[in-house]
């Protein structure tokens, strides 16, 4: 084997009951390179990585690491072989300190066999110095941001002297600044000879950071290329197997915007947001932009009856409407695709069929209150077809589907409630390009048929690409409601950070000017 090669996986196949997740794929990583692994959700990236770290055993195929042929190993073994993975969803021990998390289960001991906290502290600082980060080793994890917790995971990987670090969508919940810092650290690791496998859907990141890229599609290997010999368009067409012409298909529809459907007047929940007022018209897509923690999700939760409002009123079709519980919202024609698919979206162990009808199940009641299971089956089948949901059958548990397909199920679920107002909270988070365009197209189509859509999103290109108007929030308040004409990311960011504010108290402003 070539000296330059750190990892070689050959003809790897992995099957699950009813699904072939990986079909004879190859994957090779060189020493000291940042290698992107790219593919749509369900392409098999995560499965391959889980095989690599010993979480799954491969059904067939061979793996060499650092010159040795390896097989039948556990996750523990893989850590000892110096392979580390930074998972997409981090599972730290929140009630312990930074250093305790890093050295969990292998704490340095003093001569009495007790934990030597002083030594642990010094060892932690040494590691931090290696990649120039500044965190207090004695801080509780509870009080740290996601970005910092992620860095601690990276430090943990280094503490095992990892030769290979796998990063699974590390930037999905980071701010731009934090992403920058992550990139600096990642490049630092590379300069120390560590290889990185970088999984991400964000193509611009891959171009900025990676040396080469391997593309998977539907559990099969497509190609591996140096980053300099590939462009965005080729990457996308390799991922989806066809050309994607127009990412935001909104302009394909000539949608007419009608009268006001929803009017929100000065609502507050007493904690997360106050004095929120906006309206939403028929056929309109209203974007909600803002930084993480600006209170956008909380506003939507209150509109939908998940949490109560303490002040203000909600007017739907000129009728003052009390929404005390989520079924009031559904009865009033509101649908709510939540931000966190796993936590508040899917019923993981239940079938795709049930997940589809879970919000509209009462409409299938016949006389005697029994469900018309035949109609449920037919509708589920029809929506699986229309939305192109890839699933072995509607009896399959939804947890076995890829993220993009789960999201399609959830969107279909809400359309089955026949809503007039759709609230979509981060509708394309963690979803690949192919599924994204399909979701955009569905949104545009819905607006065209007269439905009103609120789209909360932290991805500015999608907000700018899809919205008719954009509401920007900053720290629980609306700072701007903007017509989407001649806007750019810069302007929205100014509103999102509170630099610009169209609704600030005028008197205060005057006062401030006088003081200056």
């Amino acid at each position: 084997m070539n000296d330059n090669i750190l990892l070689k996986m050959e003809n790897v196949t992995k099957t699950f009951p009813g699904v072939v997740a990986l079909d004879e794929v190859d994957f090779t990583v060189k020493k000291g390179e940042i290698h992107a692994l790219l593919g749509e959700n369900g392409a098999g990236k995560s499965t391959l990585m889980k095989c690599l770290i010993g979480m799954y055993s491969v059904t067939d195929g061979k793996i060499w690491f650092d010159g040795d042929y390896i097989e039948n190993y556990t996750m523990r073994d893989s850590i000892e072989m110096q392979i580390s993975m930074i998972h997409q969803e981090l599972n730290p021990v929140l009630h312990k300190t930074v250093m305790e998390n890093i050295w969990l289960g292998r704490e340095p001991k003093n001569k009495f066999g007790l934990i030597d906290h002083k030594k642990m502290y010094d060892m932690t600082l040494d590691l931090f110095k290696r990649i120039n980060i500044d965190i207090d080793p004695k801080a509780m994890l509870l009080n740290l941001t996601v970005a910092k917790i992620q860095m601690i995971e990276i430090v943990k990987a280094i503490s095992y002297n990892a030769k290979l670090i796998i990063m699974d969508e590390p930037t999905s919940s980071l701010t731009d600044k934090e992403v920058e810092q992550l990139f600096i650290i990642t490049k630092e690791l590379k300069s120390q000879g560590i290889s990185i496998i970088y999984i991400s859907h964000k193509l611009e990141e891959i171009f900025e950071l990676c040396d080469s890229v391997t593309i998977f599609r539907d559990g099969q290997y497509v190609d591996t290329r140096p980053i300099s010999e590939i462009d965005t368009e080729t990457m996308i067409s390799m991922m989806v197997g066809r050309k994607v012409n127009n990412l935001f298909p909104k302009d394909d529809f000539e949608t007419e915007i009608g009268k006001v459907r929803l009017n929100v007047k000065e609502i507050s929940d007493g904690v997360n947001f106050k004095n929120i007022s906006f309206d939403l018209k028929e056929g309109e897509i209203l974007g909600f932009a803002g930084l993480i923690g600006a209170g956008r999700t909380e506003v939507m939760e209150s509109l939908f009856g998940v949490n109560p409002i303490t002040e203000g009123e909600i007017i739907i079709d000129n009728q003052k409407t009390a929404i005390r519980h989520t079924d009031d919202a559904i009865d009033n024609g509101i649908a709510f695709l939540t931000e966190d698919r796993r936590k508040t979206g899917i019923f993981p162990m239940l079938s795709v069929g049930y997940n589809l009808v879970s919000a509209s199940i009462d409409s299938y009641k016949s006389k005697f209150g029994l469900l018309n299971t035949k109609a449920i089956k037919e509708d589920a089948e029809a929506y699986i077809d229309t939305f192109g949901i890839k699933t072995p059958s509607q009896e399959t548990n939804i947890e076995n589907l890829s993220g993009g397909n789960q999201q399609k199920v959830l969107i279909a679920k809400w359309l089955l409630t026949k809503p007039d107002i759709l609230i979509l909270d981060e509708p394309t988070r963690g979803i690949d390009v192919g599924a994204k365009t399909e979701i955009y197209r569905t949104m545009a189509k819905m607006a065209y048929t007269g439905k009103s859509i609120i789209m909360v999103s932290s991805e500015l290109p999608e907000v700018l690409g899809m919205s008719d108007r954009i509401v920007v929030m900053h720290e629980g308040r609306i700072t701007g409601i903007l017509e989407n004409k001649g806007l750019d990311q810069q302007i929205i960011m100014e509103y999102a950070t509170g630099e610009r504010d169209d609704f600030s108290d005028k008197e205060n402003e005057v006062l401030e000017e006088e003081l200056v």
Partner: protein
Amino acid sequence: MQTEQTEAQQILKEKERKANYTIMAKKYLIVIILILMIIGLSILNPSFLRFNNILNILTQISIYGILSLGVFIVIVSKGIDLSVGSILAFAGIVAAAVSQTSAAIDQVFPNVGMAPIGITILVALLMGGILGAINGSLIAYFKIPAFIATLGMFTAARGAALMVSGGRPVSNVNPSISFFGSRLFGIIPVPVVIYATVIIIIGIMMKFTSFGKSVYAIGGNIDAAKVSGIKVKRNITIIYMICGVLAGLAAIIHMGRTGGSIQPGAGMGHELTAIAGATIGGTSHSGGVGTVWGAVVGALILGVLVNGFTLLGINAYVQQIVQGVIIVAAVLLDMRKAAD
């Protein structure tokens, strides 16, 4: 080129088919175990398969089988109910106390006379329902963990049964109650008929009503259930209430079988047998997973085991050890299923 592709597809299909077989085999594993047990016992002791013995087994399991179905619903909703045995005792004692024969009641309240049997049934079901609803409300509205809330009820309801009865068995119950321990047409035991009816009703409820589906949804992901417009708190209360009503029903059968008397200690330990039955039947304690037929097969396995071992003359202590092993083994199999 084309043949190559079809060949690849065939291999793929073959792989999928094999995977599907394993799913099927695992799904019906407990049925296979039950059948193997029955075959084994019939070979060892041919009298096992006699018609009367089969009816005997079914009669024996009807009480905790019914309790097991209630607990099954609770476990699917990701809860637990430790109180069904105590609720059985309390509901039975109260129902027995209001259903005394004229001769007995005249000594305290002359000229009141005996209450109709309908009152007995109603009171038993009502008491069960009320205690169950208390369990459910504590869990749904006051956010008390199900284990704690029903542990409290386990202790308190038993205490209440002892208090109402003064610690003594209550007898002299309306003789019509013996109907619930008798045999229809002299052949089919009434407890078995009731058990079968409950199986059918619960079966329909879990599969063909939106309430039943919501039980799976609540157990599967309570936050998503709330967002989907399910009245989570109300439904949790109803779930525990149903469990309580079934405990009341079990109390009626209990009194029927004892010929009209009930002790304040009745149903002791039944809560654990009920949980065991549902668990052996593949009801997952992580919520959202379980079938009615599974819970029934689970109860049958326990019944067949006790009956078969008794026929074979194996001592009761050994039976208990085997029961324990089976419960753990069933969950172990279940977890391996989940891990794959």
